[in-house]
């Protein structure tokens, strides 16, 4: 009985050890950097070295502009929240200010979509038709992009 129990325990320990060791070696590393995302794109779309270099350059070039726009959109979102708070508390709305805000937001949104479309189309240009098809399918999973690219 002792032997049976020790063999069962040994089997359990060996199984667990092999499981944990293999999992730790092969588990995908978490990365949210541009390089990590582009490396994922390279694997996902099976890009060649030249394609990868070109797409990477395109993304790196547009990344600062896109980040700045994201910050601008976030700021506008904050302003809208402030407008809404004032409207609820004082029941007053500065319509001129709000109209200016709406106009700015419309302009920024249009600019964001244009920048994104330019980047997506420039990247797609570098790809083969099959890669492009997969890439467009991938980016159109986001609703605003889908509307923008499919129209």
């Amino acid at each position, binding site marked *: 009985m002792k032997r049976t129990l020790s063999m069962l325990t*040994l089997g359990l320990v060996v199984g667990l050890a092999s499981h944990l060791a293999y999992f730790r070696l092969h*588990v*995908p590393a978490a990365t949210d950097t541009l390089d990590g995302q582009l490396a994922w794109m390279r694997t996902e779309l099976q890009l060649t070295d030249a394609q990868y270099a070109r797409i990477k350059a395109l993304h790196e070039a547009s990344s600062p502009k896109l980040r700045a726009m994201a910050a601008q*959109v976030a700021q506008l979102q904050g302003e809208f929240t402030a407008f809404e708070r004032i409207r609820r508390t004082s029941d007053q709305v500065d319509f001129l200010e709000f109209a200016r805000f709406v106009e700015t937001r419309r302009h920024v949104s249009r600019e964001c979509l244009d920048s994104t479309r330019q980047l997506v189309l420039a990247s797609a240009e570098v790809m083969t038709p099959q890669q492009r098809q997969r890439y467009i399918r991938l980016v159109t999973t*986001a609703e605003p992009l889908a509307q923008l690219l499919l129209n």
Partner: protein
Amino acid sequence: MGARGERAREGPAGPAKDFEGLSRGVVLCLLPSAFPAMNPPPDPLDPLLDRWSVTPEPPARLSAEVWQRIALNQVDSSPSAGWRVMLESWFARPPFAVVFVASCALLGLFLAEVRVNHAQRERSEQLARSYLQLIDPLLTVQNEEPRR
């Protein structure tokens, strides 16, 4: 008196009888008493066995003990005990033990591979989402909004 007592009274040669009219000395081949050297020595147990005629009384708990033993035998032959015995006999063989441990390791690797595939799929979906956020500032803000 037992059978041995009868044998002792009659002697090793049995009752003295003639064989088809011939005297004992003539029928040499039938009578071992013709060879005195073959007589067995007297067994000291024989008189004791002759005196032993009392049958001992069975113990008071004999019936209970018999039933207890039967019950124990039935427990030992139950399916779980059979499995245990079979398992022990299998593990007593070194090749089986080695194969068992190797199978455990392979099972661990297989399950790890399944987990890795699942993690890669999830990671891929997460990277797709974060890539879309990277290229679309509007999406970035939309996704950050609910966290506030």
